């Protein structure tokens, strides 16, 4: 609102000290970089604006240096496929996971541990599943994290080099029954007496299995991710062939 014609003009503000001008520029730059980090990372980084903002020089590097490169879109809990419980298991190879003694180790395990440690292993298992999905087209990148985990884990358990399976379980969150009553899907199934309604339950996602084989030449494990059911090949050995030796 411009001042009235007859009222005295407000006194001019004293000039700001030089350091305040410098601080103002730095504060604006910092807040801009923070805003870039939030826009770039929020919603899984899908924003079209975010894709352009990634190109702003030094903005993301600056926030990454200060560990502020997050979208901060933490929902605290959800019902999505990534919101459940993730768990890593080390299994004997070729043995049913439910058999006694098949599970050599579990992270996070059932044994008591600090919640923050349990949460860290949960994050590790989540990332194993996340990278498995992200690097689906590249087996080397896909198995990079599982192999590193398995190398350290087998050494920690003093297991002899051999055949193992690293399994990443993705357990969906337990829903509140009353909250999902309206969302239950029904399918029509032919039974005796005609078409009948049947509840369709979404099955939990298959565990991610990475088969580990000790490479005596390189002195480390080599791994391959189990292919989905429809993409597996069978090796058929002719009858009378000599037994396979490791």
């Amino acid at each position: 609102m411009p001042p009235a014609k007859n009222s005295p003009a407000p006194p001019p503000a004293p000039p700001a000290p030089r350091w305040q001008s410098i601080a103002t520029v730095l504060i604006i730059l910092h807040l801009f970089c923070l805003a870039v980090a939030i826009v770039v990372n929020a919603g899984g980084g899908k924003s079209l604006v975010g894709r352009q903002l990634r190109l702003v020089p030094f903005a993301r590097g600056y926030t990454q240096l200060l560990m502020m490169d997050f979208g901060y879109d933490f929902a605290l809990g959800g019902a999505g496929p990534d919101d459940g419980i993730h768990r890593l298991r080390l299994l004997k190879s070729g043995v049913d996971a439910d058999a006694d003694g098949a599970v050599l180790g579990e992270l996070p395990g059932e044994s008591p541990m600090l919640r923050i440690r349990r949460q860290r292993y949960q994050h590790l298992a989540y990332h194993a599943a996340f990278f498995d999905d992200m690097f689906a087209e590249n087996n080397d990148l896909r198995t990079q994290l599982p192999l590193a985990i398995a190398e350290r884990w087998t050494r920690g358990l003093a297991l002899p080099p051999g055949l193992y399976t690293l399994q990443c379980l993705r357990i969906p969150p337990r829903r509140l029954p009353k909250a999902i009553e309206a969302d239950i899907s029904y399918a029509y199934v032919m039974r005796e007496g005609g078409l009948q309604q049947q509840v369709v339950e979404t099955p939990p996602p298959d565990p991610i299995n990475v088969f580990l084989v000790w490479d005596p030449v390189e002195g480390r494990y080599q791994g391959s991710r189990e292919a989905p059911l429809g993409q597996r090949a069978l090796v058929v050995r002719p009858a009378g062939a000599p037994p396979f030796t490791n």
Partner: protein
Amino acid sequence: MSNVTAYFRELNRSMGVGWNRFWFTPTAARTLGAIRIAAGLLAFYAVATYGPDLERFFASDGMLPMSLVGSLYRPEGQVLGQHSLLDYLPDGLLRPTYYASLAVTGLFTLGIGGRMAAVAAAVLTLSFFARAPLVIGEFEAILSFILVYLCVGRSCDAYSVAALLRRRAPAFSLPPPASPLNTIALRLLQIHVVAVHLMMGYAQLAAPESAWWSGEGMWLAAGRPGMPLVDVSGLEEHPRVVAAWSHAITLYLLAAPVLLWNRRARPLVLSWGAAVWLSVGLATGWMPLALAMLAATASFWEPEPLGQWAASPLAGVRPASAVGR
């Protein structure tokens, strides 16, 4: 035309005055001192709990070798970016560095060492987070920015061993003056924590399966086995209670960014926030995250009431204009 010019001139002047008042009014260090203690204790806890998994996470032959972390988080040629002191440490120095970090964060918590201790504590704590980015989550994200902003202000001027000694030494009885650096630190904390609240509220509204719209959100958050501090599974028969709880949290996250700036509403919103975060911490077991959010939101506390009910020889700072007025 002269009216338009006068308008923009007046607008520019008033914005400048407002900006300078918002960012550069000198403030006492009491609020920062309290936040320093909370953040220092949380940083100490965060680093200390890496102890049992130190070699497992940080050793060169651990679960997170540098070759893996580097390929994922350290693109070649990036000048800034995520770096960690632990990237350059040989395995033999891992344990000594771990104990040194605990010592530094302890000194920082006690307010010994001034800004140097603040910077050292921030660098060391963030180094642990940056070296093992695959095992960090919400708690580390919140604690990081608190520690960084505490490096800006003079948080060791209040509620510290230094303040206590200052009060007892007659030669140095004058308390440290209020400083605009404290204001800058508090404002940065306030803006950042407000942005976090807003983004968390947005995330809940956008959560898959409308989990928070239906009120199921807190049930899902509290459903991880082995995590909750308080068992809330009995609420399965009381879905309306769960829904009310979830909606209260979402409403707080969306309302707080606006209401916290209003002085009259601030005490109510801070109390609401305390109830929200403590309930989240107890139900989910994420007490470190809850306490970190409370510490960050404490940036909206005003120094005078804090000094009055927490009158102690450690608060060796003379009163100054409160932040937020």
